[in-house]
Protein backbone atom coordinates (compact mmCIF):
# COMPACT_ATOMS: atom_id res chain seq x y z
CA UNK A 1 0.00 0.00 0.00
CA UNK A 2 1.37 3.33 -1.03
CA UNK A 3 0.31 6.52 0.77
CA UNK A 4 1.33 9.74 -0.74
CA UNK A 5 3.85 11.33 1.63
CA UNK A 6 2.86 14.74 2.92
CA UNK A 7 6.36 15.97 3.42
CA UNK A 8 8.29 16.13 0.21
CA UNK A 9 5.26 16.13 -2.02
CA UNK A 10 5.21 18.69 -4.73
CA UNK A 11 3.35 21.80 -3.65
CA UNK A 12 0.49 22.27 -6.01
CA UNK A 13 0.28 26.06 -6.18
CA UNK A 14 -1.84 25.71 -9.26
CA UNK A 15 -4.51 23.96 -7.24
CA UNK A 16 -4.56 26.82 -4.79
CA UNK A 17 -5.12 29.39 -7.53
CA UNK A 18 -7.64 27.11 -9.18
CA UNK A 19 -9.59 26.74 -5.96
CA UNK A 20 -9.49 30.44 -5.23
CA UNK A 21 -10.96 31.16 -8.66
CA UNK A 22 -13.38 28.24 -8.40
CA UNK A 23 -14.65 29.41 -5.05
CA UNK A 24 -15.00 33.01 -6.22
CA UNK A 25 -16.90 31.95 -9.33
CA UNK A 26 -19.12 29.62 -7.32
CA UNK A 27 -19.89 32.40 -4.87
CA UNK A 28 -20.78 34.79 -7.69
CA UNK A 29 -23.03 32.22 -9.37
CA UNK A 30 -24.72 31.32 -6.11
CA UNK A 31 -25.22 35.00 -5.37
CA UNK A 32 -26.71 35.66 -8.79
CA UNK A 33 -28.96 32.65 -9.17
CA UNK A 34 -29.96 31.60 -5.67
CA UNK A 35 -28.86 33.86 -2.86
CA UNK A 36 -30.01 37.13 -4.40
CA UNK A 37 -33.57 36.16 -5.29
CA UNK A 38 -34.11 34.17 -2.11
CA UNK A 39 -32.73 36.88 0.13
CA UNK A 40 -34.80 39.48 -1.69
CA UNK A 41 -37.89 37.40 -1.16
CA UNK A 42 -37.02 36.78 2.48
CA UNK A 43 -36.54 40.50 2.97
CA UNK A 44 -39.84 41.22 1.22
CA UNK A 45 -41.55 38.62 3.36
CA UNK A 46 -39.99 40.09 6.48
CA UNK A 47 -41.21 43.51 5.38
CA UNK A 48 -44.68 42.16 4.65
CA UNK A 49 -44.91 40.38 7.97
CA UNK A 50 -43.76 43.45 9.81
CA UNK A 51 -46.24 45.59 7.85
CA UNK A 52 -49.01 43.13 8.58
CA UNK A 53 -48.14 43.18 12.25
CA UNK A 54 -48.13 46.98 12.24
CA UNK A 55 -51.48 47.04 10.46
CA UNK A 56 -52.91 44.52 12.88
CA UNK A 57 -51.73 46.63 15.78
CA UNK A 58 -53.24 49.72 14.17
CA UNK A 59 -56.60 48.12 13.54
CA UNK A 60 -56.61 46.70 17.04
CA UNK A 61 -56.06 50.18 18.46
CA UNK A 62 -58.75 51.56 16.18
CA UNK A 63 -61.19 48.88 17.22
CA UNK A 64 -60.47 49.55 20.89
CA UNK A 65 -60.98 53.26 20.33
CA UNK A 66 -64.24 52.64 18.52
CA UNK A 67 -65.45 50.35 21.27
CA UNK A 68 -64.63 53.01 23.82
CA UNK A 69 -66.48 55.60 21.78
CA UNK A 70 -69.51 53.34 21.57
CA UNK A 71 -69.42 52.73 25.27
CA UNK A 72 -69.26 56.43 25.92
CA UNK A 73 -72.12 57.02 23.52
CA UNK A 74 -74.14 54.35 25.30
CA UNK A 75 -73.39 55.91 28.65
CA UNK A 76 -74.37 59.30 27.27
CA UNK A 77 -77.59 57.94 25.83
CA UNK A 78 -78.45 56.45 29.22
CA UNK A 79 -77.83 59.80 30.84
CA UNK A 80 -79.90 61.44 28.12
CA UNK A 81 -82.74 59.04 28.70
CA UNK A 82 -82.65 59.69 32.42
CA UNK A 83 -82.67 63.42 31.77
CA UNK A 84 -85.55 63.15 29.31
CA UNK A 85 -87.58 61.15 31.79
CA UNK A 86 -86.77 63.60 34.56
CA UNK A 87 -87.78 66.53 32.36
CA UNK A 88 -90.98 64.78 31.37
CA UNK A 89 -91.77 64.09 34.98
CA UNK A 90 -91.18 67.70 35.95
CA UNK A 91 -93.23 68.90 33.01
CA UNK A 92 -96.04 66.51 33.91
CA UNK A 93 -95.98 67.66 37.51
CA UNK A 94 -96.04 71.30 36.51
CA UNK A 95 -98.86 70.70 34.08
CA UNK A 96 -100.79 68.71 36.64
CA UNK A 97 -100.42 71.46 39.19
CA UNK A 98 -101.42 74.01 36.61
CA UNK A 99 -104.50 72.06 35.60
CA UNK A 100 -105.39 71.44 39.23
CA UNK A 101 -105.02 75.11 40.05
CA UNK A 102 -107.12 76.03 37.04
CA UNK A 103 -109.76 73.54 38.01
CA UNK A 104 -109.77 74.78 41.58
CA UNK A 105 -110.16 78.35 40.44
CA UNK A 106 -112.90 77.37 38.04
CA UNK A 107 -114.66 75.35 40.71
CA UNK A 108 -114.41 78.22 43.18
CA UNK A 109 -115.75 80.58 40.53
CA UNK A 110 -118.63 78.28 39.74
CA UNK A 111 -119.39 77.79 43.40
CA UNK A 112 -119.25 81.52 44.03
CA UNK A 113 -121.51 82.19 41.10
CA UNK A 114 -123.87 79.47 42.28
CA UNK A 115 -123.81 80.92 45.78
CA UNK A 116 -124.52 84.35 44.42
CA UNK A 117 -127.30 83.02 42.23
CA UNK A 118 -128.78 81.12 45.14
CA UNK A 119 -128.56 84.16 47.35
CA UNK A 120 -130.16 86.25 44.67
CA UNK A 121 -132.92 83.71 44.16
CA UNK A 122 -133.51 83.61 47.89
CA UNK A 123 -133.63 87.37 48.03
CA UNK A 124 -135.92 87.44 45.06
CA UNK A 125 -138.12 84.80 46.59
CA UNK A 126 -138.20 86.62 49.89
CA UNK A 127 -138.95 89.88 48.17
CA UNK A 128 -141.73 88.34 46.14
CA UNK A 129 -142.96 86.55 49.23
CA UNK A 130 -143.01 89.83 51.08
CA UNK A 131 -144.86 91.44 48.26
CA UNK A 132 -147.30 88.57 48.18
CA UNK A 133 -147.53 88.62 51.96
CA UNK A 134 -148.26 92.26 51.77
CA UNK A 135 -150.80 91.66 49.04
CA UNK A 136 -152.33 88.85 51.00
CA UNK A 137 -152.31 90.93 54.09
CA UNK A 138 -154.10 93.54 52.19
CA UNK A 139 -156.57 90.96 50.87
CA UNK A 140 -156.96 89.42 54.30
CA UNK A 141 -157.37 92.76 55.79
CA UNK A 142 -159.97 93.53 53.23
CA UNK A 143 -161.69 90.29 54.07
CA UNK A 144 -161.33 90.97 57.81
CA UNK A 145 -162.77 94.26 57.43
CA UNK A 146 -165.72 92.59 55.93
CA UNK A 147 -165.88 89.90 58.56
CA UNK A 148 -164.57 90.26 62.13
CA UNK A 149 -161.88 87.92 63.20
CA UNK A 150 -160.15 87.11 66.44
CA UNK A 151 -156.49 87.82 66.85
CA UNK A 152 -155.75 84.12 67.18
CA UNK A 153 -157.61 83.32 64.05
CA UNK A 154 -155.68 86.00 62.24
CA UNK A 155 -152.32 84.69 63.41
CA UNK A 156 -153.23 81.14 62.39
CA UNK A 157 -154.35 82.34 59.09
CA UNK A 158 -151.09 84.15 58.36
CA UNK A 159 -148.91 81.28 59.56
CA UNK A 160 -150.73 78.73 57.49
CA UNK A 161 -150.46 80.99 54.56
CA UNK A 162 -146.75 81.42 54.90
CA UNK A 163 -146.25 77.68 55.39
CA UNK A 164 -148.18 77.03 52.26
CA UNK A 165 -146.00 79.39 50.29
CA UNK A 166 -142.71 77.57 50.31
CA UNK A 167 -141.69 74.84 52.65
CA UNK A 168 -137.92 75.35 51.87
CA UNK A 169 -137.82 79.00 52.54
CA UNK A 170 -139.71 79.06 55.81
CA UNK A 171 -137.90 78.32 58.97
Amino acid at each position, binding site marked *: *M*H*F*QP*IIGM*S*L*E*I*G*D*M*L*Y*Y*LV*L*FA*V*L*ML*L*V*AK*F*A*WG*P*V*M*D*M*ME*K*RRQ*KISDDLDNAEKSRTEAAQMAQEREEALKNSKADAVEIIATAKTNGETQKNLILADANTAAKDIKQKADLAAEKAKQDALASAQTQVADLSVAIAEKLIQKELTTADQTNLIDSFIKGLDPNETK
Partner: protein
Amino acid sequence: MGEKPVVVQFFGLNFNLTNCIAGLVAATLVFIFVFVLSRKVEMKPNKKQNVLEYFIDFTNNIVKANMPSKYVSKFSLFAFTMFLFVFMNNQLGLFLEVIIDDHIVVKSPTASPVITMTLASITLLMSYAYSMKKRGFKGYLKSYMEPVSFLLPINIIEEFTNFLTLSLRLYGNIYAGEVLLTLIGGRLAKAQGFLSVIYSAPLTMIWQGFSVFIGSIQAYVFVTLSMVYISHKLSEE
Protein backbone atom coordinates in the same frame (compact mmCIF):
# COMPACT_ATOMS: atom_id res chain seq x y z
CA MET B 1 -5.86 6.13 -1.82
CA GLY B 2 -3.22 3.97 -3.31
CA GLU B 3 -3.80 5.46 -6.70
CA LYS B 4 -1.52 8.11 -8.09
CA PRO B 5 -2.86 11.61 -8.54
CA VAL B 6 -2.60 13.21 -11.96
CA VAL B 7 -0.24 16.16 -11.75
CA VAL B 8 0.40 18.34 -14.75
CA GLN B 9 2.66 21.33 -15.19
CA PHE B 10 0.98 24.41 -16.53
CA PHE B 11 2.58 27.88 -16.66
CA GLY B 12 5.28 26.45 -14.43
CA LEU B 13 2.73 25.61 -11.75
CA ASN B 14 1.78 22.16 -10.59
CA PHE B 15 -1.85 21.35 -11.11
CA ASN B 16 -3.21 18.28 -9.41
CA LEU B 17 -5.91 17.38 -11.90
CA THR B 18 -7.60 15.09 -9.39
CA ASN B 19 -8.31 17.98 -7.08
CA CYS B 20 -9.20 20.28 -9.95
CA ILE B 21 -11.75 17.91 -11.45
CA ALA B 22 -13.17 16.93 -8.06
CA GLY B 23 -13.44 20.58 -7.03
CA LEU B 24 -15.19 21.40 -10.27
CA VAL B 25 -17.60 18.51 -9.74
CA ALA B 26 -18.30 19.60 -6.17
CA ALA B 27 -18.81 23.21 -7.18
CA THR B 28 -21.08 22.15 -10.02
CA LEU B 29 -23.13 19.97 -7.66
CA VAL B 30 -23.45 22.84 -5.19
CA PHE B 31 -24.53 25.15 -7.97
CA ILE B 32 -27.05 22.67 -9.37
CA PHE B 33 -28.38 22.16 -5.84
CA VAL B 34 -29.05 25.82 -5.18
CA PHE B 35 -30.07 26.50 -8.78
CA VAL B 36 -32.77 23.83 -8.76
CA LEU B 37 -34.01 24.88 -5.33
CA SER B 38 -34.27 28.55 -6.21
CA ARG B 39 -36.15 28.32 -9.49
CA LYS B 40 -39.54 29.44 -8.25
CA VAL B 41 -39.07 32.01 -5.53
CA GLU B 42 -42.37 33.05 -4.05
CA MET B 43 -43.68 35.07 -1.16
CA LYS B 44 -45.27 31.95 0.24
CA PRO B 45 -42.31 29.57 0.07
CA ASN B 46 -42.79 26.31 -1.80
CA LYS B 47 -41.12 23.08 -0.75
CA LYS B 48 -37.89 23.63 -2.67
CA GLN B 49 -37.59 27.18 -1.49
CA ASN B 50 -38.15 26.00 2.06
CA VAL B 51 -35.18 23.65 1.82
CA LEU B 52 -32.96 26.41 0.51
CA GLU B 53 -34.20 28.86 3.11
CA TYR B 54 -33.51 26.28 5.79
CA PHE B 55 -29.88 26.09 4.66
CA ILE B 56 -29.63 29.86 4.45
CA ASP B 57 -31.08 30.19 7.93
CA PHE B 58 -28.67 27.57 9.20
CA THR B 59 -25.57 29.35 7.91
CA ASN B 60 -26.97 32.76 8.84
CA ASN B 61 -27.35 31.53 12.39
CA ILE B 62 -23.72 30.44 12.41
CA VAL B 63 -22.72 33.94 11.32
CA LYS B 64 -25.08 35.62 13.76
CA ALA B 65 -23.75 33.59 16.65
CA ASN B 66 -20.17 34.71 16.05
CA MET B 67 -20.36 38.15 14.48
CA PRO B 68 -21.37 41.61 15.59
CA SER B 69 -24.79 42.11 14.02
CA LYS B 70 -23.70 44.89 11.66
CA TYR B 71 -21.36 42.52 9.80
CA VAL B 72 -23.80 39.64 9.50
CA SER B 73 -25.19 40.56 6.08
CA LYS B 74 -21.67 41.02 4.73
CA PHE B 75 -20.52 37.50 5.51
CA SER B 76 -23.69 35.47 5.24
CA LEU B 77 -23.26 34.72 1.55
CA PHE B 78 -19.64 33.73 2.14
CA ALA B 79 -20.66 31.44 4.99
CA PHE B 80 -23.45 29.90 2.92
CA THR B 81 -21.24 29.18 -0.08
CA MET B 82 -18.33 28.01 2.05
CA PHE B 83 -20.55 25.66 4.02
CA LEU B 84 -22.08 24.05 0.95
CA PHE B 85 -18.76 23.86 -0.87
CA VAL B 86 -16.86 22.30 2.01
CA PHE B 87 -19.76 19.97 2.73
CA MET B 88 -19.90 18.82 -0.88
CA ASN B 89 -16.12 18.44 -1.01
CA ASN B 90 -16.26 16.30 2.13
CA GLN B 91 -19.00 14.04 0.81
CA LEU B 92 -17.76 13.72 -2.75
CA GLY B 93 -15.23 10.98 -2.06
CA LEU B 94 -17.78 8.90 -0.15
CA PHE B 95 -19.94 8.15 -3.13
CA LEU B 96 -17.75 9.00 -6.06
CA GLU B 97 -14.29 7.70 -6.71
CA VAL B 98 -13.24 7.56 -10.31
CA ILE B 99 -10.06 5.73 -11.12
CA ILE B 100 -8.67 5.55 -14.64
CA ASP B 101 -5.60 3.41 -15.31
CA ASP B 102 -4.33 3.48 -11.73
CA HIS B 103 -4.77 7.26 -11.68
CA ILE B 104 -7.39 8.62 -9.29
CA VAL B 105 -9.50 11.29 -10.97
CA VAL B 106 -12.27 12.13 -8.52
CA LYS B 107 -12.11 11.96 -4.72
CA SER B 108 -12.81 14.25 -1.78
CA PRO B 109 -10.68 17.32 -2.47
CA THR B 110 -10.64 18.10 1.26
CA ALA B 111 -8.69 14.90 1.84
CA SER B 112 -5.74 16.84 0.47
CA PRO B 113 -4.02 19.35 2.78
CA VAL B 114 -3.31 21.74 -0.07
CA ILE B 115 -7.02 22.23 -0.69
CA THR B 116 -7.95 22.67 2.96
CA MET B 117 -5.10 25.15 3.33
CA THR B 118 -6.43 27.01 0.31
CA LEU B 119 -9.88 27.18 1.86
CA ALA B 120 -8.42 28.26 5.19
CA SER B 121 -6.34 30.91 3.49
CA ILE B 122 -9.45 32.27 1.74
CA THR B 123 -10.94 32.80 5.19
CA LEU B 124 -7.81 34.26 6.74
CA LEU B 125 -7.04 36.53 3.78
CA MET B 126 -10.58 37.80 4.04
CA SER B 127 -10.10 38.48 7.73
CA TYR B 128 -6.88 40.42 7.01
CA ALA B 129 -8.53 42.33 4.21
CA TYR B 130 -11.48 43.36 6.36
CA SER B 131 -9.22 44.23 9.25
CA MET B 132 -7.14 46.51 7.00
CA LYS B 133 -10.26 48.01 5.51
CA LYS B 134 -11.54 48.79 8.96
CA ARG B 135 -8.39 50.04 10.71
CA GLY B 136 -6.16 50.99 7.81
CA PHE B 137 -2.84 49.28 7.17
CA LYS B 138 -1.11 50.81 10.18
CA GLY B 139 -4.02 50.03 12.42
CA TYR B 140 -3.95 46.48 11.13
CA LEU B 141 -0.24 46.09 11.96
CA LYS B 142 -0.86 47.72 15.28
CA SER B 143 -3.58 45.21 16.09
CA TYR B 144 -0.82 42.63 16.55
CA MET B 145 0.51 44.69 19.45
CA GLU B 146 -2.79 44.63 21.26
CA PRO B 147 -3.69 44.48 24.03
CA VAL B 148 0.00 44.93 25.07
CA SER B 149 3.06 45.13 22.86
CA PHE B 150 4.94 42.14 24.27
CA LEU B 151 2.16 39.88 23.00
CA LEU B 152 3.38 40.54 19.45
CA PRO B 153 5.13 37.18 18.97
CA ILE B 154 2.18 35.33 20.46
CA ASN B 155 -0.24 37.14 18.17
CA ILE B 156 1.86 36.29 15.14
CA ILE B 157 2.12 32.66 16.16
CA GLU B 158 -1.63 32.68 16.70
CA GLU B 159 -2.14 33.51 13.03
CA PHE B 160 -0.15 30.42 12.04
CA THR B 161 -1.94 28.21 14.50
CA ASN B 162 -5.30 29.52 13.32
CA PHE B 163 -4.36 28.75 9.77
CA LEU B 164 -2.99 25.32 10.55
CA THR B 165 -5.76 24.22 12.90
CA LEU B 166 -8.45 25.42 10.52
CA SER B 167 -6.98 23.60 7.53
CA LEU B 168 -5.48 20.51 9.11
CA ARG B 169 -8.54 19.70 11.24
CA LEU B 170 -10.63 19.45 8.11
CA TYR B 171 -7.93 17.62 6.20
CA GLY B 172 -7.29 15.13 9.00
CA ASN B 173 -10.92 14.22 9.47
CA ILE B 174 -11.69 13.71 5.81
CA TYR B 175 -8.36 12.04 5.00
CA ALA B 176 -8.78 9.59 7.85
CA GLY B 177 -12.28 8.82 6.68
CA GLU B 178 -11.09 8.12 3.17
CA VAL B 179 -8.17 6.00 4.35
CA LEU B 180 -10.38 3.81 6.45
CA LEU B 181 -12.92 3.55 3.67
CA THR B 182 -10.21 2.44 1.28
CA LEU B 183 -8.91 -0.03 3.84
CA ILE B 184 -12.32 -1.58 4.42
CA GLY B 185 -13.52 -1.46 0.85
CA GLY B 186 -10.30 -2.01 -0.98
CA ARG B 187 -8.20 -4.25 1.26
CA LEU B 188 -10.45 -6.01 3.74
CA ALA B 189 -13.03 -6.93 1.13
CA LYS B 190 -10.41 -8.65 -1.00
CA ALA B 191 -8.62 -10.34 1.90
CA GLN B 192 -10.58 -13.60 2.14
CA GLY B 193 -12.42 -13.78 -1.11
CA PHE B 194 -16.19 -14.06 -1.12
CA LEU B 195 -16.63 -14.24 2.67
CA SER B 196 -14.85 -10.98 3.34
CA VAL B 197 -16.82 -9.22 0.64
CA ILE B 198 -20.00 -10.08 2.57
CA TYR B 199 -18.90 -8.90 5.97
CA SER B 200 -17.04 -5.88 4.69
CA ALA B 201 -20.19 -4.50 3.04
CA PRO B 202 -22.05 -3.51 6.27
CA LEU B 203 -18.77 -2.20 7.70
CA THR B 204 -18.35 0.01 4.67
CA MET B 205 -21.89 1.25 5.00
CA ILE B 206 -21.44 2.02 8.68
CA TRP B 207 -18.23 3.87 8.04
CA GLN B 208 -19.74 5.78 5.11
CA GLY B 209 -22.61 6.87 7.31
CA PHE B 210 -20.19 7.98 9.96
CA SER B 211 -18.15 9.82 7.35
CA VAL B 212 -21.23 11.68 6.16
CA PHE B 213 -21.76 12.72 9.75
CA ILE B 214 -18.12 13.76 10.15
CA GLY B 215 -18.17 15.61 6.84
CA SER B 216 -21.23 17.61 7.90
CA ILE B 217 -19.80 18.38 11.31
CA GLN B 218 -16.48 19.43 9.81
CA ALA B 219 -18.19 21.73 7.30
CA TYR B 220 -20.09 23.30 10.18
CA VAL B 221 -16.96 23.61 12.31
CA PHE B 222 -14.99 25.07 9.42
CA VAL B 223 -17.57 27.80 8.76
CA THR B 224 -18.02 28.51 12.46
CA LEU B 225 -14.28 28.90 13.05
CA SER B 226 -13.95 31.01 9.91
CA MET B 227 -16.53 33.38 11.31
CA VAL B 228 -14.86 33.37 14.71
CA TYR B 229 -11.50 34.33 13.18
CA ILE B 230 -12.98 37.02 10.97
CA SER B 231 -15.01 38.53 13.78
CA HIS B 232 -11.92 38.39 16.00
CA LYS B 233 -10.12 40.54 13.45
CA LEU B 234 -13.05 42.91 13.21
CA SER B 235 -13.72 43.26 16.91
CA GLU B 236 -12.81 46.45 18.74
CA GLU B 237 -10.18 45.97 21.33
